[in-house]
């Protein structure tokens, strides 16, 4: 190896790192512009509010939008009590022990399991054994399990970030544990918890593999949570893989990116407000 002068090395390393970082940003911008450039011209009011016709070659993406909203909403509503409850249990109700270690292990493991495995499980368990068929409910339940780790981790962090003094004050004034959590901890942790919820929403919106096996791909307007409906991500996948319409595929992708962007901005605003409010 050639021994470099430390200052040359410094310059070289700095140069390389700047280049790589800027390239990553460039690639990111390129991908987004690439999709948006072709997609934005497709998006108009009609595209958003019309039911897809001829497998999505014509018409809009109203049904997939409704599918995405309902599957996501359902998943979050189901995951919320479990995720936040677990976070409170871990942060407030227990000391480190075997049980917490097991819970933590399971949470971390769930976080690493690929979505296709969730899809397999959801298909066998919810679709077949519980006989919910391909439905918004099956999809929502599957996604709920999938986002559980995200929700637990972010909520637990938010709860642990609440200063210890708040709890002591509340206890010292005669508060019970429950009152203390409800009145002193929750108000301070709520922003972090909401941020976790938003991250989970993002994951649900973006998921394809798990929902395609559980919520199905029906293009009909769902009448209830027991009906199948495809989400936007699945619709996009179908448009591309079936070669139905590249134009509408770009349009759907653009809507997805804008939605994800919007969700991220909301999350960031919340984080910023959270940080700004902290001491």
């Amino acid at each position, binding site marked *: 190896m050639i021994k470099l002068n430390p200052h040359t090395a410094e310059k070289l390393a700095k140069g390389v790192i700047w280049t790589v970082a800027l390239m990553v940003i460039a690639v990111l911008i390129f991908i987004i512009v690439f999709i948006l450039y072709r997609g934005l011209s497709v998006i108009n009011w009609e595209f958003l509010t019309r039911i897809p016709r001829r497998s999505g070659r014509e018409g809009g993406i109203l049904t997939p939008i409704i599918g995405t909203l309902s599957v996501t909403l359902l998943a979050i*509503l189901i995951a919320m009590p479990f995720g936040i409850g677990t976070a409170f249990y871990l942060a407030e109700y227990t000391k480190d022990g075997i049980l917490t270690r097991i819970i933590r292990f399971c949470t971390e493991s769930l976080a690493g399991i690929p979505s296709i495995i969730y899809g397999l499980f959801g298909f066998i368990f919810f679709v077949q054994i519980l006989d919910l*068929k391909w439905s918004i409910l099956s999809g929502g339940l599957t996604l709920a399990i999938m986002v559980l780790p995200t929700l637990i981790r972010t909520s637990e962090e938010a709860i642990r970030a609440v200063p210890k003094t708040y709890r002591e004050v509340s206890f010292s004034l005669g508060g019970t544990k429950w009152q203390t959590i409800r009145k002193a901890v929750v108000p301070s942790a709520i922003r972090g918890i909401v941020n976790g919820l938003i991250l989970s929403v993002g994951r649900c919106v973006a998921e394809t593999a798990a929902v395609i096996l559980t919520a199905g791909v029906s293009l009909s307007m769902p009448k*209830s949570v027991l009906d199948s409906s495809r989400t936007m991500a699945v619709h996009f996948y179908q448009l591309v893989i079936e070669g139905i319409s590249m134009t509408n595929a770009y349009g759907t992708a653009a809507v997805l990116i804008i939605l994800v962007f919007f969700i991220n901005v909301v999350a960031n605003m919340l984080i910023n407000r959270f940080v700004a409010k902290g001491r």
Partner: protein
Amino acid sequence: MKHYIQVGLLSVLLLSVNLLSSCMAGKAHGGLNPTTVIVAGSTSVQPYVEILVEEYRLLYPDNAVGVQGGGSSAGIRAVLNEIAEIGMSSRALNQEEKELGLWSVEIALDGLAIVVHPDNKVENLTMEQVRDIYSRKITNWSEVNGEDRKIHIISREEGSGTRSAFQDLVMGDEMIAPRAIVQNSNGAVRQLVSSDRNAIGFISLGLAEPQPGLQPVKALNLDGFSPTQENVLSGEYELYRAFLFISEDEPTGAARHFVSFVLSEEGQRILSGEGLIPAREMALTGGEGVSDEEV
């Protein structure tokens, strides 16, 4: 803080409205048509059935039909597991499935087109050449009067009706080479062939036609016969298979109503307009087409 509570309440409200409306919907339809008829299976048949459903919905707005993909085998299994009322298959039932005593009806015939990139010089292949290409005995286009380029073979995945039809009609006992690229829909094969000069694939005949917004592909003649509806009907173009609807027993109620629609003149006209060949016989007992009593 209050804001979040409001959002939360709103979501709960929305959900309960949804649940409530689903109960209501179930009630309103009542006896004959309590739930959505689910049609599931072959991705080859799926796009056509989706179009049929759109038309059907215009005629009978109260009858709900949902279409799922999954593949021919999945469709048959979905019927057996009672996940779906009707299965779609793009291949004949195999022995095992026949023994289960499933009910089936042919809804249309579909030719299989051997497609290549439009710039490919090759116009015609024999059945044997196709077989040799897919078993990789022939690996260069120059061996079949084309340019000196490697052949990229594109196939469908295990379980696909189109693949099993291709296997039966073309390959016989030969195996499709494992090195073949596998795509899981007609559209994906078409997309790939349209963008790769060296590729060859097989897709549903209806999809081989030029499509608005998509790159074209070229359908090859087989043993000198072009893949047209006429040549399929006359038996000169040998690559075709039947699209089937499958059910546990002969369908009744809402499911029967939809099947009748598909087999009616109107339904067959729609399929024919999409490039399929009308079914050879309409084998739904108890009258053809849609009668008003059944609605």
